[in-house]
């Protein structure tokens, strides 16, 4: 029959209930029989508590409670029965008694010679009775019996034994008069050697101290009645059996690598007689709903029905061999999520470590486990092992000493779900913690050390102080192990800093870190720190600096008292004003606490700071000292105040007129011994008192002006006084008097010349002020008017001024005559000047024009000279024999037939157009200008010539130009077309153009026939006016002299362009010298023909014979053989 914990609880209840009730009731055998049945059933293991209704017992108790006084007999019967029944529940091992319900019980019955004693009252020796510890099953009602009870009180501190005679109860109940029974009890503790004695009538109660230890107590009782005495046999009580067994201890759970959860506990005493255990557990949310189980003979149990993520409370108790149950242990709380096996590992560097993780959450699968090292690095899956569905294992090798953690997480999508537990790995050996130390806040007795170690480690900083130098510590390492390590006062934690206080500067500190686990610790390499090397000294103090008149800055300071080593210093300073460079200037290292620094100017205040450090050895610079502003040394007060001007600005918003004084910086007022340190602005308004304001050396000073007469005086000051010669200014609102007659400004490239004149009938002003706005400063860039305003004061005698600075030329200058009592009416003028670049450009253009003109003139002269010199007289040609070129019909005779274009057969007849003889002899008929080497100049506008003779000679309308073309490289191998262009002389503009083109060609003069850059040249050799003239002078071969290849290659384009640009129809006549003409050229010709309807004649001439003639070698060598070339040939 199974008995759960509820049944046991009920049983205890009944036992206690019955025990508490037994001294009062249970006088009937009916109850006894029920009880006996229960005991029997329980012994046989068949007890069914559920059928044992306590309410029946309770009613029974009420029923029989009234029978309490039915007599001693009944009571004795109960006692015996009760003892028997309880002894059956609790094994009896006490000598003469039984242990039950944490009490020792015995029944002592003695036979006393009661009657005899009454009869023989004169007997000398009292009669001695006999006592016997009775088996409770055999009560003897005829004798005097005592109920003996012993129990513990307190925490095993006292044992109380009580002996009570049955007579007492009977007397009380029956109200019969009986002789008194005297009970005397002796109690002796064997171990504690304590004894106690107590006496009483019918009852005796003794207490003996046990001092909390288990002991065996001896008990002796004697009873006396009417002079007769009886002694009990020796009784022994073991206090060990009078208490509950102690609860088990060290309740905990382990998880096996298979995922089994095993709870374990230990007995409180090593020699515990616990034989049975019971464990119960409940979830935190369902308290009082316990689940439990009994365990026999072992102190562990496996609980595999627990859920993850639930907080459980578990308790355990034990049962001794006399069936006493201990109290439940204190609750043990736990939550199962992920368990690591082992949770802490100590290993050595390079060893392999295997850690198991058990997923108690059954929705997590070991196949999806992800192991993380220090929460930062994912361990490769190749190092994982799946033990079973819930258990994953990883094997890692830790390479470096120190502390690491392993976390087993569960992959959930792309994320890794982890719980807060992790396994810790301690790897033996020294790790590098990178400890650095430095004093802070300039406290020499304080030093802060920082380290860099994984945030996962809970480290302790330990240190040890040595009185020797750090260099010798390593030699002493072995000898001071006994010395105690000290820990950082700030304690362990995730802090990475420890601050040492009350340092001994010249000691050596050995500092290291320790990471401590449950089974050991690992430590870092120690660092040896001498604070003297790491402590940052305090900055120097009592700094003083003076700017001396000899342009020297004198600085002195006081070194810190501690540390006492020699120091070096560094000083830096910066000017407060007056110097453009406001960067700190550093001076050092300095060995003395003072310095003399040469300056560029005097009277300047400087901000000075100093710092210090150890002179020899390492160490840190101190912080910079407090800033100190140098004092400017003065021997006397300034002599004169600064010059100043004003800017008046209306504030329309507030209806206030503000006056800003623009003060020239008076650093030196007189001599170097009287520097100006500040200004005093003295005001005096009309009708009011004088007041003044002190300012620093500012460039601007503003004050509101009420447009009343207001006199302002600016006074220089220093520590010794104020200036005596000062300038003042009177501001007036009334109309100002006019005294300037004229004011003009003349500007050149970099200077402005200002001049003015005064009206003769006015007094001369005290001075003049000329002001203008600096256009360099952009007003849009928040540059105020006062900063843009420039001014200069001019003496009263001056009437002009040269201002040489950068001007833009559009400045407006204002001349203010300044009188003693105010300003006169200002006069304005604007200095305008041209842009110098424009002037320069104009000059350059003019110069170039002149150069061009001269060049043209010279080239014209040269051309005339060349042409008239080289062109042969056509009259010398054979074909012109007998021709009178002066006659108008000469040309018609020359070209009698239009189809042959007349000249061609002539040329072909001669078979050599180059057979021209140039006769240098002056022909009497030759034009005068030829003789005089004059150059005819044509004006295209009126189509007249300057030379009347030429004009007369040029009445001949025709000018023949023969041209040749050279094949371009693109057309090499192709037949080419050469043209001769016949120009009509009645188009002087065209002729002039052609002449110019020709002239330029001659000037550029690459007449070399072997020039290959003739490609693309327009095949238009020209005979220009000179040819015309030449023809007039009967020298038609003259044209051949121009027929160089280069010449035509250039002139042809120019000619073409000229013909277009003039917009005048060209009368061109092309001489086609090759039938194999390209189509483009044909088209061009056709177009030309269409344009020139009347005067065009095309002469088709095969040029090849010409080209194959003599003197063609020069060109032929450079041009393809197929290229027809026409070279000029001259013949005499």
């Amino acid at each position, binding site marked *: 029959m199974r008995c759960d914990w509820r049944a046991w609880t009920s049983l205890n209840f009944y036992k206690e209930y019955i025990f508490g009730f037994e001294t009062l009731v249970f006088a009937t055998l009916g109850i006894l029989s029920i009880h006996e049945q229960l005991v029997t059933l329980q012994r046989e293991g068949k007890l069914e508590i559920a059928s044992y209704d306590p309410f029946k017992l309770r009613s029974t108790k009420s029923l029989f409670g009234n029978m309490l006084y039915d007599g001693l007999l009944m009571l004795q019967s109960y006692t015996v029965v009760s003892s028997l029944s309880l002894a059956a529940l609790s094994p009896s091992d006490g000598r003469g008694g039984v242990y039950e319900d944490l009490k020792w019980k015995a029944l002592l019955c003695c036979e006393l010679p009661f009657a005899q004693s009454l009869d023989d009252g004169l007997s000398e020796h009292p009669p001695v009775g006999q006592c016997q510890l009775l088996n409770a099953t055999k009560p003897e009602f005829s004798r005097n019996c005592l109920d003996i009870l012993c129990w513990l009180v307190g925490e095993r501190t006292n044992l109380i034994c009580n002996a009570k005679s049955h007579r007492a109860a009977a007397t009380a109940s029956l109200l019969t008069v009986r002789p008194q029974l005297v009970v005397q009890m002796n109690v002796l503790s064997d171990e504690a050697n304590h004894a106690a004695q107590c006496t009483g009538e019918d009852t005796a109660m003794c207490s003996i101290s046990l001092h909390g230890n288990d002991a065996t107590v001896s008990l002796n009782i004697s009873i006396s009645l009417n002079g007769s005495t009886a002694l009990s046999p020796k009784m022994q009580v073991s206090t060990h059996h009078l208490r509950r067994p102690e609860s088990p201890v060290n309740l905990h759970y382990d998880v096996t690598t298979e995922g089994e959860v095993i709870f374990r506990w230990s007995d409180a005493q090593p020699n515990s007689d616990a034989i049975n255990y019971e464990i119960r557990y409940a979830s*935190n949310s369902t308290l009082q709903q316990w689940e439990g189980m009994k365990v026999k003979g072992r102190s562990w149990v496996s609980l595999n029905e627990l859920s993850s*993520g639930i*907080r459980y409370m578990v308790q355990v108790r034990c049962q001794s061999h006399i069936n006493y149950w201990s109290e439940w242990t204190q609750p043990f*709380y*736990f*939550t199962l*999520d992920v368990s690591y096996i082992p*949770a802490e590992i100590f290993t050595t560097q390079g060893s392999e470590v295997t850690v198991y993780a058990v997923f108690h959450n059954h929705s997590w699968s070991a196949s999806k486990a992800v192991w*993380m090292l220090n*929460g*930062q*690095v*994912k361990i490769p899956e190749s190092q994982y092992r799946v033990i079973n569905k819930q258990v994953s294992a990883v094997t890692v090798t830790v390479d470096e000493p120190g502390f690491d*953690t392993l976390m087993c*997480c569960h992959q*959930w999508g*792309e*994320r*890794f*779900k*982890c*719980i*807060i*537990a*992790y396994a*810790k790995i301690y790897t033996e050996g020294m790790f590098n913690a990178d400890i650095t130390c430095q004093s802070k806040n300039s406290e020499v007795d304080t030093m802060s050390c920082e380290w860099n170690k994984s*945030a*996962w480690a*809970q480290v302790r900083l330990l240190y040890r102080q040595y009185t020797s130098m750090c260099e010798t510590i390593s030699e002493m390492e072995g000898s001071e192990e006994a010395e105690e390590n000290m820990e950082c006062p*700030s*304690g*362990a*934690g*995730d*802090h990475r800093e420890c601050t040492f206080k009350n340092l001994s500067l010249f000691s050596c500190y050995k500092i290291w870190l320790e990471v401590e686990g*449950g089974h050991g610790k690992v430590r870092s390499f120690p660092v040896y720190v001498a604070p003297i090397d790491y402590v940052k000294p305090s900055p120097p103090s009592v700094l003083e600096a003076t700017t001396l008149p000899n342009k020297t800055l004198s600085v002195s300071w006081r070194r810190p008292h501690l540390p006492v080593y020699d120091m070096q210093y560094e000083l830096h300073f910066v000017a407060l004003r007056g110097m453009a460079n406001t960067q700190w200037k550093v001076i050092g290292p300095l060995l003395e606490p003072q310095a003399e620094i040469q300056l560029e100017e005097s009277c300047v205040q400087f901000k000075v700071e100093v710092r210090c450090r150890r002179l020899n050895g390492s160490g840190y610079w101190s912080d910079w000292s407090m800033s100190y502003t140098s004092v400017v040394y003065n021997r006397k007060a300034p002599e004169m105040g600064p010059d100043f001007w004003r800017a008046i600005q209306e504030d329309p918003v507030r209806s206030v007129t503000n006056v800003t004084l623009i003060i020239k910086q008076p650093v030196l007022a007189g001599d170097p011994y009287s520097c100006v340190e500040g200004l005093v602005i003295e005001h005096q308004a009309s009708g009011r008192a004088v007041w003044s304001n002190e300012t620093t050396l500012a460039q601007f000073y503003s004050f509101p002006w009420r447009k009343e007469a207001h006199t302002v005086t600016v006074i220089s000051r220093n520590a010794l006084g104020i200036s005596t010669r000062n300038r003042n200014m009177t501001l007036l609102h009334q109309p100002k008097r006019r005294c300037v007659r004229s004011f003009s400004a003349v500007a050149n490239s970099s200077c402005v010349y200002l001049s003015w004149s005064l009206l003769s009938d006015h007094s001369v002003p005290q001075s003049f002020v000329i002001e203008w706005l600096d256009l360099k400063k952009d007003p849009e860039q928040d540059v105020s008017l006062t900063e843009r305003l420039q001014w200069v004061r001019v003496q009263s005698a001056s009437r002009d001024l040269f201002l040489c600075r950068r001007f833009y030329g559009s400045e407006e200058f204002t001349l203010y005559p300044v009188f003693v009592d105010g300003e006169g009416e200002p006069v304005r003028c604007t200095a305008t000047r041209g842009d110098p670049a424009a002037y320069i450009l104009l000059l350059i253009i003019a110069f170039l024009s002149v150069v061009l003109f001269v060049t043209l003139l010279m080239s014209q002269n040269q051309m005339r000279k060349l042409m008239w010199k080289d062109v042969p007289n056509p009259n010398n040609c054979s074909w012109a024999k007998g021709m009178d070129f002066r006659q108008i019909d000469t040309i018609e005779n020359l070209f009698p037939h239009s189809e042959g274009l007349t000249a061609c057969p002539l040329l072909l007849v001669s078979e050599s157009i180059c057979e021209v003889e140039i006769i240098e002899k002056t022909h009497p008929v030759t034009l005068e200008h030829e003789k005089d080497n004059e150059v005819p100049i044509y004006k295209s506008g009126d189509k007249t010539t300057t030379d009347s003779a030429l004009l007369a000679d040029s009445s001949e309308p025709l000018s023949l130009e023969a041209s040749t073309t050279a094949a371009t490289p693109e057309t090499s191998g192709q037949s080419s077309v050469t043209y001769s262009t016949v120009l009509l002389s009645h188009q002087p503009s065209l002729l002039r153009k052609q002449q110019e083109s020709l002239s330029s060609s001659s000037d550029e003069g690459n007449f070399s026939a072997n020039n290959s850059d003739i490609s693309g040249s327009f095949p238009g050799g020209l005979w220009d006016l000179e040819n015309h003239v030449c023809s007039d002078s009967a020298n038609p071969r003259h044209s051949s002299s121009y027929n160089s290849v280069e010449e035509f290659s250039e002139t042809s384009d120019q000619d073409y362009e000229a013909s277009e640009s003039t917009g005048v129809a060209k009368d061109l006549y092309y001489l086609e010298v090759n039938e194999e003409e390209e189509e483009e050229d044909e088209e061009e010709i056709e177009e030309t023909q269409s344009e020139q309807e009347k005067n065009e004649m095309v002469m088709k001439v095969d040029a090849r014979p010409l080209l194959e003639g003599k003197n063609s070698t020069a060109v032929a060598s450079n041009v393809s053989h197929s290229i027809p070339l026409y070279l000029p040939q001259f013949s005499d």
Partner: protein
Amino acid sequence: MYFPALLYPCILGMLSLVHGIPIHPDNLKNLVKLQADTIVLRIKDHNDKLKLYPTLLIGDPELYPEIPADKTIQGLGSIMDTLTTFQKVLQRLPKGHVSQIHSDLSTLLGYLKERMTSMHCTSKEPANGRSLDAFLEDNATHHITVGYLALDRLKQFMQKLIVNLDQLKRC
């Protein structure tokens, strides 16, 4: 002529009230916001030092209910309740930089406590005190992750508090 006689008691009465004038609600909101922002930044710095793997998630919101996660804000009482729990957690963590956050949290609690007093709100003890103690005791050896988890949840609560400053006007 009766004015002085009336004026003086009024002035005295006003002066006596001045001492007990609580922080103006708007000022309190500003203070709480500043302090909460400070705590959020400190937590961020602290947790960043762990340099955890980017996809690592320590402690699901449904796990470890002892540390408040995603708590709703319903007036000063709930704020105080949650913050007190966090303060207990921080108290149990090893000293270090967390102590600064703990100090900030105490300051914030001081503001709220004063506000609750001035509004005559009744405060109650946190309900999960015992289980929290047991949780912290069980996980004392894992203070790094416990601290990370607690600070992360505190940060979330602070961020929620910053956008629910109107709840400071309710008990």
